[in-house]
């Protein structure tokens, strides 16, 4: 060992320069610190599938808003000379069996389907979060009652409840959303309750209590932001379900009824005309599938972005 040391290039005192201490520089953080949301946004942008899904969904959203306005056709305007026609320059996505322009109908349908998806999933998340937060924080009798209610709602197949509510309330966007919210809030509520149970014993909650914050503020300002990422992921995963349910209910004649359009209605009309004009099924099927696919990919991406430890799990 000692021999090797002598072989090293000799270091002399002259090679070193005293540069002094720059305390300010030592203490400063070299890269700008990122907030939780900035970091999550970065990870989403780095995830190709999720990023493209996000772009696709934004494009769909914009088209749903603007495409029907910009078209020369109305969504229920019939053209007896162009019935069940395929793709053409006049009718970009062809026409349906009554000669209505499918391009316009698809985007009118997107308005309904996406609204239902967003609103139903959003309301589910809000109601589930608030109730779950209180259940988890307080525990006790209130918690027990809510949990038993959830057990019962959870035990009954959701579509059956939806069908019943739709039969009572009549068809339409509002009743669809109400029906979905009645059965849908339970999942989020259970999940939030579990998370709040886990978090409420932690020091920052204790600190907030010592400072005298009211319970509502503690739940909303201290606990919920900690599980916001998971909630948003849940939301992204819940939207496809709502879109599926709308399609199903419209298919069996309970959701939206023609001439109003939704993707479910269009698909239903498509299955009827499949032998004559298969494009009538392909078009709504394509939009339902790509939207659901994009939402699922975005959901996966969000989950990875908010909690990188979960990466790669299903």
């Amino acid at each position, binding site marked *: 060992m000692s021999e090797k040391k002598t072989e090293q290039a000799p270091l002399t005192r002259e090679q070193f320069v005293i540069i002094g201490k720059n305390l300010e520089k030592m203490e400063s953080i070299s890269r700008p610190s990122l907030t939780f949301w900035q970091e999550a946004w970065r990870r989403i942008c780095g995830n190709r599938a999720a990023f493209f899904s996000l772009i696709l969904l934004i494009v769909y959203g914009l088209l749903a808003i603007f495409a029907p306005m910009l078209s020369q056709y109305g969504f229920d305007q019939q053209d007896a000379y162009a019935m069940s026609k395929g793709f053409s320059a006049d009718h970009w996505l062809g026409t349906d069996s009554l000669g209505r322009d499918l391009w316009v109908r698809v985007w009118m349908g997107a308005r309904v389907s996406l609204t239902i998806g967003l609103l139903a999933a959003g309301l589910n998340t809000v109601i589930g979060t608030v109730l779950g937060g209180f259940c988890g924080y307080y525990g006790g009798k209130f918690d027990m009652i809510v949990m038993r209610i959830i057990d019962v709602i959870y035990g*009954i197949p959701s579509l059956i409840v939806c069908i019943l509510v739709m039969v009572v309330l009549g068809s339409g966007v509002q009743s669809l959303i109400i029906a979905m919210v009645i059965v849908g809030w339970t999942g989020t509520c259970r999940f939030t309750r579990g998370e709040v149970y886990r978090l409420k014993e932690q020091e920052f909650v204790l600190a907030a209590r010592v400072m005298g914050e009211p319970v509502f503020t503690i739940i909303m300002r201290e606990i919920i932001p900690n599980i916001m990422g998971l909630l948003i992921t849940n939301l992204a995963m819940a939207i496809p379900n709502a879109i599926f349910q709308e*399609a199903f209910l419209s298919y*069996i004649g309970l959701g939206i009824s023609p001439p109003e359009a939704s993707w479910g209605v269009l698909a239903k009309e498509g299955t009827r005309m499949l032998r004559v004009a298969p494009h009538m099924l392909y078009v709504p099927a394509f939009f339902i599938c790509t939207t659901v696919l994009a939402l699922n990919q975005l959901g996966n991406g969000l989950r990875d972005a908010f909690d990188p430890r979960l990466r790669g799990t299903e």
Partner: protein
Amino acid sequence: MTKYILKRIGISLVTVFVLVSVVFFLARLMPGGPFNDPKMSEAARENLSAYYGFDKPLWEQYLTYLGNLLHGNFGFSTKYPSRTVNDLLAGAFPYSADLGIRALCFAISFGLVFGIISALNRGNKIDLIFVIVAVFGTSVPDFIMGALLQYFFSVKWGLLPIAEYKGFAYTILPSVGLGFYTMASVSRIMRASMLEVVQQDYIKTARSKGISRFRVTWKHQIRNAIMPVITILGPTVAAVLTGTFVIESLFAIPGMGKYYVESVQNSDYSLILGMTVFYGTFLVFCNMIVDILYGIVDPRVRIAGK
């Protein structure tokens, strides 16, 4: 264990009771009565109401309904006066059950096999194909799947019969259409679970003991990986059974789903209610059985259940 099973049975019974009550009282909230034919005379309507017992006080009707249900009597259909709901159910349920079981068998067996193959070939082309199939499968609603299968396999290529239910060849398309979504999700979960298990220490231990790769995969990896799949079986049974609604009307199969959809479209409320109660009860008990099975397979659930 007995305590856990008893608790599950208790919850299920309460669920069924609540379901029946909710269904009963919701029925009275429905717009329009069962006899709203404008040509019907007032006297005839009163007679019919009296015949079906609709003129009695609500709580009495409720108790009668509960009593009848305890005897397995689902009441009369007001649309088909000569037939009881029991009749319709007895005729239709075997078809639905047959279709449902076939779809489940298809979904679970193919889903597991695809998931396993996919996981064993992680990262190469075979894996990619199966992953694409799985992702595609979970983003197509089952009625679109069914319609597409119908179009390609029967209309375009003429390989399989397009509708009805009269032999094995007839059952293939509806079972695949019904089971595809479930197959895709089973395969996704199985793949993920296989990949998680393969990183565990006991797999390493088994390999280092000199057990062959095949035996490790078969005895250690697959057995442990299958647990998450069992968890989703309960919701899956429900999904497949509600899926029969659309698949049956699409393929003209005379099962319960077809009657259900028709009764909804014809506003035959008593039939909707009878079927809802039957479906609901059936599914609640399916869920219960799956939960209990899971408790038997995985001791940790039992302890948590207490």
